[in-house]
């Protein structure tokens, strides 16, 4: 087992922090990016829990922006690590981690949301590569991304899960058209991405032809793990915004509202402790399915808390801050107006797997309840009703 703390200390002592990108590249090369990754790929093959030691030792040094590189870090990287060729790992992981190359995800389509495996974007062989045509939606960061993870259909004659192939899409390639997608908040936080005859060389294929679904499961599993989110202090986050209002504005207080607020406080604290327990399980090497409970609860709570806040504010709850269309890349629940919070919270039960799909997954994979009778998994995709 490598002495992670000693390595991190030595690295810090010996590495000038002048140029941020350069520092991060060196940190990657020293295996201190993600210590549980293999040596040579930014890691040391250490336990995941050792990462905390590195962060402690390197506190205050230049760092990447976890929100901007989130998709790369949480979804692309584990997929490349598991299914990529050596060349792909060498090519993509370092700039992904340093933030020099941002990533986005080209999975969802207008006709394939919850039913991702039903997607229609086609990938057709063309010489030593592929021609991609289709439309993707709900793509955050697409207008900044250098690369995308892309799921496309290579064989429509096979049942839907079996005709998919996974690619890395070059977002600078001709035929990639990124358009802002405006949401009910007025912002365009996401994009639509139109792919028209986009050429991708075969070395951008990740995993075997027709194995796209299996590769995508790695991505999705990691998405769900990462959604559990980080630790917040008791009474922090949205419930803190509500209790701060309560404490500072006597006009919002009433006995009935107090009980309602306390119900939400209890629910928020129960969800927070559940998240804490999930992290302890992970740290103890016993990852469980409880992360999905955290996401479900967060979505419900975010909507209830922000809804109550509007009610408490009364007349002020009828006023918005700004409907100007803008590119809101990073969700800021606490910085903007109460109406923004309330509207944006409506997305929490849709994005990253709807609450309905999450309940299906819990029921079938955690509780072991039998699946519904299905007919869409056995017939050729081409014959499915759409």
């Amino acid at each position, binding site marked *: 087992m490598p002495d992670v703390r000693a390595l991190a200390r030595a690295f810090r002592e010996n590495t000038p922090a002048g140029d941020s990108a350069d520092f991060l590249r060196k940190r990657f090369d020293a295996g201190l990016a993600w210590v549980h990754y293999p040596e040579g790929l930014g890691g040391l093959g250490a336990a995941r829990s050792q990462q905390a030691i590195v962060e402690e030792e390197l506190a205050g040094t230049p760092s990447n922006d976890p929100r901007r590189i989130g998709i790369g870090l949480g979804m692309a990287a584990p997929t490349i690590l598991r299914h990529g060729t050596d060349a792909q790992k060498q090519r993509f992981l370092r700039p992904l981690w340093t933030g020099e190359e941002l990533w986005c995800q080209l999975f*969802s389509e*207008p*006709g*394939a*949301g*919850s*039913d991702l495996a*039903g997607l229609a974007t086609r990938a057709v062989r063309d010489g030593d590569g592929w021609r991609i045509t289709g439309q993707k*939606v*709900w793509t955050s960061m697409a207008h900044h991304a250098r690369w995308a993870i892309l799921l496309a259909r290579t064989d429509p004659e096979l049942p839907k899960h079996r005709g998919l192939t996974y690619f890395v899409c070059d977002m600078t390639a001709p035929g990639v058209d990124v358009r802002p*997608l*405006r*949401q*009910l908040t*007025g912002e365009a936080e996401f994009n639509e991405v139109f792919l028209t005859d986009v050429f991708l060389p075969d070395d951008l294929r990740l995993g075997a032809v027709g194995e796209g679904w299996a590769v995508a499961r790695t991505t999705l599993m990691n998405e769900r793990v990462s959604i559990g989110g980080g630790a917040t202090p008791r009474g922090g986050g949205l419930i803190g915004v509500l209790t701060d209002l309560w404490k500072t504005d006597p006009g919002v207080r*009433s006995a*009935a*509202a107090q009980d*309602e607020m306390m119900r939400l406080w209890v629910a928020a604290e129960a969800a927070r402790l559940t998240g804490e327990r999930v992290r302890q399980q992970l740290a103890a090497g016993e990852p469980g399915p409880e992360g999905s409970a955290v996401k479900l609860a967060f979505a419900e709570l975010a*909507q209830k808390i922000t*809804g109550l806040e*509007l*009610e408490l504010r*009364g*007349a002020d*709850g*009828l*006023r*918005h*801050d*700004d*409907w100007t269309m803008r590119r809101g890349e990073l969700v800021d629940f606490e910085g903007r107006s109460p*109406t923004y919070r*309330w*509207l944006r919270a*409506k*997305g929490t*039960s*849709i994005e990253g797997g*709807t*609450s*309905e799909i999450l*309940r299906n997954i819990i029921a079938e994979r955690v509780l072991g309840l039998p699946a*519904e009778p*299905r*007919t*869409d998994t056995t017939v050729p995709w081409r014959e*499915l*009703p*759409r």
Partner: protein
Amino acid sequence: MNLLYSADEESLRDSLRALLRSRSWSPDDGFDPDVWRLLTAELGVTGLIIPEKLGGAGATLREAALVMEELGRFLAPVPYLGCAVMATVALRVTGDTQILTRIADGSACAALAVPFAGPLPPVSVVDGALTGRVQSVADAMVADTLLVPASDGGLWEVAADGPGVVRVPVVSLDVTRPLVDLTFDGAPGRPIGPADRAVAAAFTAGSALLASEQLGVAEWCLDTTVDYAKTRLQFGRPIGSFQAVKHRLADVWVSVTQSRAVARYAAGAVSGPDDDLGGTEQRLAAALAQSHCGPAAVRAAEECVQLHGGIGFTWEHPAHLYLKRAKTTSIALGTAPAHRHALATLLTLDAAALTEPS
């Protein structure tokens, strides 16, 4: 009380739908002057509850509730609630005839200068002119006549574009019913009667009829979601064939069905003589209506957004307009908890007021 729709009401509904179905609005439309004109000129509904002798239709608030329902269903951006219901009821109670005659013939549009939610702020009277600020007023941007409850106890008529009146549009959560901040700085006006009873009656009538608007909003949300669930395919099936989706829509249907009964009851309860509008039963019916129909509309709209999935979260799909309308109406004219508290008081169930049993 009759909780059904009369044949006349059904026929009015048909006319309204024919008119409204031919229009469409974008998320940025705060007012559609053409529709407002047609509602006055073709259907005469802006003067529906104005006495016939003043040029109105002499109908009751029941019929106006039907109009509210359809305007809610289509989310028509017109100041019907503010002008044709609340200001009109206030004017009826004060006994005004002048302004009512002009509302009836479409030459005037009045609005009560009161916050759409929250307590009345003071507007003082000095030398026959008004000074004060009233924030978040509904339907006042397009009104030409403001009815201002002033600190002398009178309801004042003030020209909306007259001297000393400043109107600043608010960035409203519900863009289809824009709010405005009013500032009166020595604005001249004319007292038309005592404000208290007039304003209270307008709030009771407004609360009772807002329930019909909320019903219309909830119906649109339910109908639209059901239609979507029938046609949206995922996993090779319409999403409406999944039992969890079915059950949630069934629950929304139950709640909308209840809203219909409650809203009809409230509309009927406030359809008697204006003198009754301060009565216990009228206030109870209005508070009940807002306690039930407001949250019911919010729930229907939330399910509409959720069950539409991603598309329901976009600016492009109208679901968000209904969500914003539902939420703002559940706060306007009193939140559901405030109305429940009013109900407790009316029913002598308020703990603070109950004394020990004898």
